[in-house]
């Protein structure tokens, strides 16, 4: 029961309160790049969820049994290595085993290789007092962060699809209005949550 409560606490604190996009400003590149349509945004979110959960599991094992103690300074470089090869490996695996999933996620997978949110989640899970040292909590940390990312990108894609229909002043068209909207959505998201207290 305590484990379940801990997982839930991790979920709320990472996916909602400390949302990776809106609070930590990680993964902004795909957040802006792949959010033009809700359907593609959801595809990207699912792919990120898939990779982040797996990468957190693998990086936890490597950190715990290889790096912990003496070689912690190798953390970043080794994590980058793991994430990049893991994404490649998953891509090959999906192509062969689950072609239908590959078709829907395939184009997003290479984008995730350099997604800083994935590395951020792996790094933070190791540094976080609440989850470090526990395999299940570390993995659920990655999963929760990815769900938060998916939530953010899908909400923002909805905002953007409404924005396409509006007559935006010419100097604001394109990237400027997208950034302004992203800021406002982030404020709304954080403002909404700061009104709720999680005892």
């Amino acid at each position, binding site marked *: 029961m305590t484990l379940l409560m801990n997982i839930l606490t991790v979920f709320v604190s990472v996916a909602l309160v400390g949302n990776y996009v809106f609070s930590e400003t990680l993964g902004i590149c795909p957040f802006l790049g792949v959010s033009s349509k809700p359907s593609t945004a959801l595809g990207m979110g699912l792919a990120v969820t898939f990779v982040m959960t797996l990468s957190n599991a693998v990086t936890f094992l490597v950190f715990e049994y*290889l790096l912990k103690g003496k070689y912690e*300074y190798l953390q970043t470089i080794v994590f980058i290595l793991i994430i990049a*090869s893991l994404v490649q490996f998953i891509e090959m*695996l999906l*192509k*062969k085993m689950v072609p239908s999933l590959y078709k829907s996620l395939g184009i997003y997978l290479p984008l995730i290789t350099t997604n800083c949110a994935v590395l951020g989640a792996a790094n933070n899970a190791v540094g976080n007092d609440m989850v470090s040292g526990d395999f299940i909590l570390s993995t659920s940390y990655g999963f929760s962060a990815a769900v938060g990312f998916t939530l953010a990108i899908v909400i923002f894609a909805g905002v953007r699809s409404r924005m396409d229909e509006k*007559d935006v002043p010419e100097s604001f068209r394109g990237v400027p209005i997208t950034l302004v909207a992203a800021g406002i959505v982030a404020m709304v998201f954080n403002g909404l949550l700061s009104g709720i207290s999680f005892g």
Partner: protein
Amino acid sequence: METFKAILFPVLIAGGIALFFGLLLAIASKVFAVRRDERIDEVKKCLPGANCGGCGFAGCDALAEAIVNQGVSPTKCAVSEPEALKPIYEIMGVKEEKHQRMRAQVMCSGTGDLSKKKYLYEGAHDCVAAAKLGGGDRICPNGCIGLGTCASRCPFHAIKVVDGVAVVDYTLCRGCGVCVAACPKHIIKLIPFESKHWVGCMSVDKGPITKSYCDVGCISCRLCEKNCPVGAITVNDFVARIDNDKCIGCDTCVKKCPRKIIWSSESQNGRLVIHRAMLNEPQVPTPPAPEKK
């Protein structure tokens, strides 16, 4: 010795992990290799690679796959020159099919004030949005809205809106048909590239009604139908249509039309030049000449 150890172990750890994943990827690329028909890549090389979607598939890659695996005809690619598609027939070992080059033609002549408007539209710069407000700002139910949805969709940037009506640049148009599907008023048609004459109107209202809102609408007077020497013109639903297979390009209909909405084209130095009979000018050529970029 201590310094040596402090360097050696991290290198071994990082290098070992890299080696492990490198080997894993190398093995995986062999084990999980997906066999792909070599012909798909060869066919793809012959396709234009613009991914316009005019063939009805997701892109050139998808069409190449369909040609190889499902035996779809290469003529689905309306965009290519027939010469460019020839190698595909060799690769597939099938007989060549006749390939007719098409072009997109906007069937509306109501530029500027010639076609009256019923309200002042202010909103999203998009024909689909405007068409949802009572079918657009023009009174004519089949008139060009002129907000350029076709122009923004055109994968070859061949369409521009000139004086309220979309105009196609025939040095760029490849006849893919994306604009035909994009137009909410369905007034863009694909016609054979060499077509000499066409009726620049699709108004299906009766003559007097058309006359009340448009100076250049077809009033179905049937003068063209009666005077055509080969019977290529028929008037149905109060609008004239020209059968491009029968038309011999004699210019009779252009001269007879009282509304000056029959357009003509001719080939000049390999370029297609459009002539439009203007209402107030007795001399013919005032082509909305496609500007070269």
